[in-house]
């Protein structure tokens, strides 16, 4: 049995753990305001808001894709759907802005748009155009051309009405943990490591956290998992802190939390996260999940390779550390042993002589999967490269470092001319494939150009932040 608050009422549900939140709302509760547009987390029509008391920056409303959220994940939590916003006939500011700006035409994407705007109302970090675009990029609209939605976003960002939703943003203890079985399907979210290890030792146990990828198997392929085990409530997994010059990132830290934290502490990570999925996805996706997925096109892996992150792996036997360069063994294969999970990721902050960058090229700038991604780090001393790490995504069966080019760069001047002479080494490192995201030619050409862009950005600076509205993944350096 799970219990949660929906639009101010406490609900109990006893359905299959493979039930999505969207299906529960629409089929069981007949709350049909929330729409299914794609059931793959790409259109945002299903967006609802979840209260997260543990968010970095304080308790926050968070827009999430209900189509990818499994119902047990909201156990013990507080949820609002589009039906719960207005106060009688008085519309919420997020709703009012859409009405006034003509932000709805056919109206089908609108509930999702409204819920993303709703989150934005209570944010204290959504003043910039970049933040507003990031907030709304997970809501596809086919009618309006977005201009009125953009205007509505500008109207409401950070307006924080003094209402019951603002009042709910107070420190609170949420306990989503628990376990139950329904028929031959079971769910558990242990808050204790030993219980967790018991659970994962069951036959067919499937570890899950935000389900932003796993959920697709349920919605697109009709998979019914028999034994789901969530890491979300394990002690320490949302830990996020700096210890000396090492940043410790719990494996279950949502990427939005990481993005906000990294803006100060690890700007190169924040730079990649700006064009990583939608806000809805980043609220549920985690760094641990992105790395364990081991997709060749997972965007955080290249950055973590460049930063030479250390993975803290935990099993019943205890903890061990593994450099990330040894983690990816093959296509979607990792070095995790049976019964072992990634508990944390540790990253040393780039030192003063380091040059770093993060790049992503995809068909669409926002909310798309990479054709090529690059995380880049070089250490420069007296104008010469003393070490280099270039982590690429989309170029091989795994996220992979350009070791031939890295080796060639060492001892060479960090200048455009020197890199130009050496860039051909990338052909030794990669023979990418052609697919609908890009041809082999495009990937190889862009990969080289990203390295060129990196040296141009960092010849005289350690790092360039993205402008508010970047047209290219490479930052233009004024001369």
């Amino acid at each position, binding site marked *: 049995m799970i219990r949660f608050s929906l639009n101010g009422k406490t609900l109990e549900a006893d359905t299959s753990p493979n039930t999505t939140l969207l299906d529960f709302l629409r089929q069981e509760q007949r709350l049909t305001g929330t729409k299914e547009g*794609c059931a*793959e987390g790409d259109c945002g029509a299903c967006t609802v808001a979840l209260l997260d008391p543990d968010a970095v920056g304080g308790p926050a409303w968070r827009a999430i894709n209900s189509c990818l959220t499994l119902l047990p994940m909201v156990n013990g939590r507080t949820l609002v759907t589009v039906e719960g916003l207005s106060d009688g006939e008085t519309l919420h500011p997020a709703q009012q802005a859409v009405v006034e700006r003509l932000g709805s035409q056919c109206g089908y994407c609108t509930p999702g748009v409204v819920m993303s705007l709703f989150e934005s109302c209570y944010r204290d970090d959504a003043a910039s155009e970049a933040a507003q675009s990031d907030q709304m990029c997970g809501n596809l609209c086919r009618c309006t051309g977005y201009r009125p939605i953009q205007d509505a976003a500008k109207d409401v960002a950070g307006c924080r009405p003094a209402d019951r939703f603002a009042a709910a943003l107070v420190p609170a203890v949420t306990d989503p943990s628990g376990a139950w079985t329904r028929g031959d399907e079971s769910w558990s979210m242990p808050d204790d490591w030993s219980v967790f290890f018991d659970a994962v030792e069951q036959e067919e146990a499937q570890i899950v956290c935000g389900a932003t990828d796993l959920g697709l198997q349920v919605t697109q392929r009709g998979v019914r998992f028999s034994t789901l085990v969530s890491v979300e409530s394990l002690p320490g997994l949302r830990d996020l802190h700096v210890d000396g010059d090492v940043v410790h990132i719990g494996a279950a830290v949502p990427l939005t939390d990481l993005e906000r934290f990294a803006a100060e502490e690890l700007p190169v990570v924040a730079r990649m996260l700006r064009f990583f999925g939608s806000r809805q996805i980043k609220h549920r996706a985690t760094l641990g999940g992105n790395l364990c997925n081991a997709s060749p096109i997972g965007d955080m892996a290249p950055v973590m390779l460049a930063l030479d992150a250390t993975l803290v792996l935990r099993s019943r036997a205890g903890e061990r550390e593994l450099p990330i360069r040894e983690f990816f063994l093959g296509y979607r294969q990792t070095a995790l042993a049976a019964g072992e999970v990634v508990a944390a990721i540790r990253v040393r902050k780039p030192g003063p002589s380091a040059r770093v960058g993060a790049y992503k090229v995809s068909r669409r700038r926002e909310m798309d999967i990479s054709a090529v991604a690059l995380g880049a780090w070089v250490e420069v001393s007296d104008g010469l490269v003393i070490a280099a790490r270039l982590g690429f995504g989309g170029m091989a069966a795994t996220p992979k470092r350009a070791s031939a080019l890295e080796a060639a760069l060492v001892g060479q001047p960090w200048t455009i001319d020197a890199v130009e002479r050496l860039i051909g080494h990338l052909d030794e490192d990669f023979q990418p494939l052609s697919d609908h995201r890009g041809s082999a030619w495009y990937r190889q050409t862009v990969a080289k150009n990203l390295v060129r862009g990196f040296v141009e950005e960092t010849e005289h600076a350690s790092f360039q932040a993205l402008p508010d509205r970047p047209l290219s993944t490479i930052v233009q350096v004024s001369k």
Partner: protein
Amino acid sequence: MSSPLHKSASHESAVGHVTGRARYVDDIAEPHDTAHAAVATSTVAAGRLLGLELTAARALPGVLGVYSAADIPGVNRIGPIVHDEPLLAEDQVFFHGQALAVVVAETREVARAAAALVKPQIEPTLPVLTMDEAIERADFHTDAHVIARGDVEQALASAAVVVEQDVRTGGQDHFYLETHGSFAQPVEGGLKVTSSTQHPTEVQREVAAVLGKPASTVVCEVARLGGGFGGKESQASQFACLAAMGAHFTGRPVKLVLKRHEDMAWTGNRHPFLGRYRAGFDAQGKLVGFAVKIYSNGGWTSDLSSPVMDRALFHLDNAYRIPALRFEGRVCRTNLPSNTAFRGFGGPQGVAVIEDAMERGAAALGIDPVELRRRNYYVDGDACPYGQVVDNVRLQRITDQLLESADYVARRAEIDAFNASSRWIRRGIGFVPLKFGISFTASLLNQAGALVLVYADGSVQLNHGGTEMGQGLYSKMLAVAADTLGVRLDQIRHMATSTEKVPNTSATAASSGTDLNGAAVLDACTTVRERMRPVAAEMLDCKPDAVRFVDGSCVAGDSSVPFADVANLCWVKQISLSSTGYYATPGIAYDAETGRGTPFFYYAYGAAFAEVEVDARTGQYGLVRVDILQDVGDSLNPSIDRGQVEGAFVQGLGWLTVEELIYDDSGRMATHGPSTYKIPAVGDIPADFRVALLDRSAQEGVIGGSKAVGEPPFLLAFAALGALRHAVGSFGGLPEIAVPATHESVLRAIEALR
């Protein structure tokens, strides 16, 4: 006067949209005995269907029935014009995703699971997937449609410059946010079908035909669509028919709502086109001859391909006068989903050809591309290729205004200076004018009906044949009715569109919804109002023509009586308070045999400038600024019309820049979800987006002096393509940018010049 006509106002359902109260097909409360349908489809693109094994599907617990072609009680043929589409496959399959059988079950899950158990025996044959293959095999849905004038060969021979090219444009998924949905409920005497269709009458007609019943036994109702864009004009019917079959056989309400991947793989898209042209210009840049052969990829059935081809031919001239020409168009038959209507309906594909010629002609002659276009504009009195004479042409006026407001000359010079000193980052500015013919090209379709009911308490129900799919039709119709009856908007309830209120309707398509239905609503409301007038005059003690109907009152001089009181007295006096209304567009006709006629009631005009910035290292680019001036006549609702212009532009931008349908070698769609098929997102729109509506531009003979706005601005996205050409061309030479102009496509064009 406080008439809502010609005033900006929010969408009539806006509050319903933002609260989630607005209902779509899948949101309708399901009676407790509702069953669910799923479709079993072909997994090969072409072959002989030798058998269909249904036993396993039928045996699954919860399955109520599995039905194939043999079970169809009426005719197994649907299709909007030529009825050439088997609803369920018979002895052959024609595309990957073709419906083989429909399953009805207690739940959606069981229905889908059972559909997966339907096992066809198919002997595969080699599919034809591309236009080039179809052309080579001479496999066409249509004969050549030819429009010709003068001696084009002679004109080309005498031209100062001849440019020639094959222009290819791609398909486009509609990506309406609401997938196809149908809900068929048995009622006494027949069926009620709620469908997400732009064409309720076609759903009614085809459901009746498939069930072998008269049309009167079927009611089709549509409250609203979650987007249509043409994709629900003809193609909603097949799903409505399948749900209706389920309801017919089981006697239970049956719902069929497609998953996104099903919708994308099974339904047709915008037609890809190939245009082979030769265009001749004289030394001053005037077009002297234009010879074009165009082909479209029709897919497996004819659907609307023939009129889409007609409209492509009608728009091969875009805004330009062409003295000598020969246009020929044919629809290719392929083993793909049947391509169908999509905003612009062939117009954009036709315009793509001549705009390519304009760009190449300007480059060849060294004339500014805007100037070259202006020299070729139609002027009043010119005849289009098919003989229709144009008047009230607003192209020069629009261009003059826009040149100034967009500051084109200075900005182009600045851009050229910038490009000369920038290694990787290049900018470009592009321009396109548009002229778009308004009317269904099948002239008989230009008719509409309405039904207005005034109740004795002064409240009103409004019905007409048009469907609301986000374009704001209902908002405009409410304003027309309120203005005509002289009542407040809150006195009128707009009813769901239903074939039991207005029969024999045309699709809400061709940008014609407001023109046609507005005139019918005006007619109906005028009839009722004029019946009420003498009664109002009696109450006000004045002459009938002294009565004004304003804002819920009947007014004469200083006296007034509430509209409701007049309505009540009409009832007491036994005067009818309801009326139908009807409209048919006068004076249009076209003869495809001779390629001559007056297919359009009028033309819509507009123009746009677009500026881009490109990174030559990745091919990534963005729109820096867009300036649009669109002629919508005297707008019935400027804020809704602006929304149409912006939405159409961004949708056109998606088609030309990022959206790409990919099929594998076996004819299976590879891009069947938003994870792989990318439509524009919020960050893709112009950073500076300036949209204006042409003022002082009433259109005579159209409701309220307005003009159609749904489709024309889609064409304005070609300005972005011109801007990319300018930016890429700064590397020296003629850029060859394949569409969609993805980042890869742009990088290829740059690398070819560098």
